[in-house]
């Protein structure tokens, strides 16, 4: 079976996120107030062939850790069923 998955990669808590901070600083100028803790990141969408959803997520988690993110500075979260 083929499963549609999504991996979100963001900088780890405690690692400076200059893009997120810059976006946050721009918000008041557009009239947005009360928006805090902006984090910028990357999203990857792909499909995985696997016998079941759990196996597909395990493959996605593995490739997220080994390629899509650098665990020294980034966290990766796998989301399933994004079709």
């Amino acid at each position, binding site marked *: 079976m083929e499963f549609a998955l999504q991996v979100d990669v963001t*900088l780890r808590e405690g*690692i*400076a996120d*200059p*893009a997120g901070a*810059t976006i946050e600083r721009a918000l008041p100028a557009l009239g947005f107030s009360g928006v805090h803790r902006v984090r910028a990141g990357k999203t990857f969408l792909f499909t995985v062939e696997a016998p079941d959803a759990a196996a597909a997520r395990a493959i996605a988690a593995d490739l997220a850790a080994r*390629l899509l993110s*650098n665990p*020294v*500075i980034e966290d990766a979260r796998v989301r399933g069923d994004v079709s």
Partner: protein
Amino acid sequence: MRPVGVLVFPGSNCEHDVVRALGDLGAPAELVWHAQTDLSGYDGLVLPGGFAHGDYLRPGALARFSPVMGAVAEAAAQGRPVLGICNGFQILTEAGLLPGALRQNTGLTFISRPVTVRVASSQSVLTRTTAVGTRLVIPINHFSGAYTCDDATYARLVEGGQVVLTYEDNPNGSRGDIAGIASAAGNVVGLMPHPERAMSSLLGSADGRGLLQSFVESTVLAR
């Protein structure tokens, strides 16, 4: 004298400068395409600056999987001098041959200008012959140059004399002003500044010469 291998990834762009700089110091150097898997003919290796594999995903993230990287790891393990400059430094961290990571500059700007760095340790193939405390003017040219690592790694680097170069006026948000680090054995070195662009006072600075001379001498000693 056997040549130094200067690796060329798709998107490298400082390889000719490095070959020219090493040649200036009397060291033969050859370009080595990243598909090569045998590096036994080279006493030392340089991973030059540029944008290997377009810097897609993260700088160095895809270059780490280039066929040549297995032989680079082997050379590093054998104690042969391996030098990563700028993008080459990013590749070495992604490949796990040096600890930590390089993240985007704090100011979110691409910085291209000469900076002053200080030699913080002589325990590396690059700084072996330069006294600790020596100030050098060398250009930087990067967007992702802020060195980052966890507390335990930072403590280990400092205690082990593995922090080899620090910025005098931190331009990018690097932890501990780090501009360059070495492996525990001192034979693998990564730095963001470009010593190959500081080879002549006529062109701004000749402060890179001593560093690269030390590297060249180390390649002979490592045989």
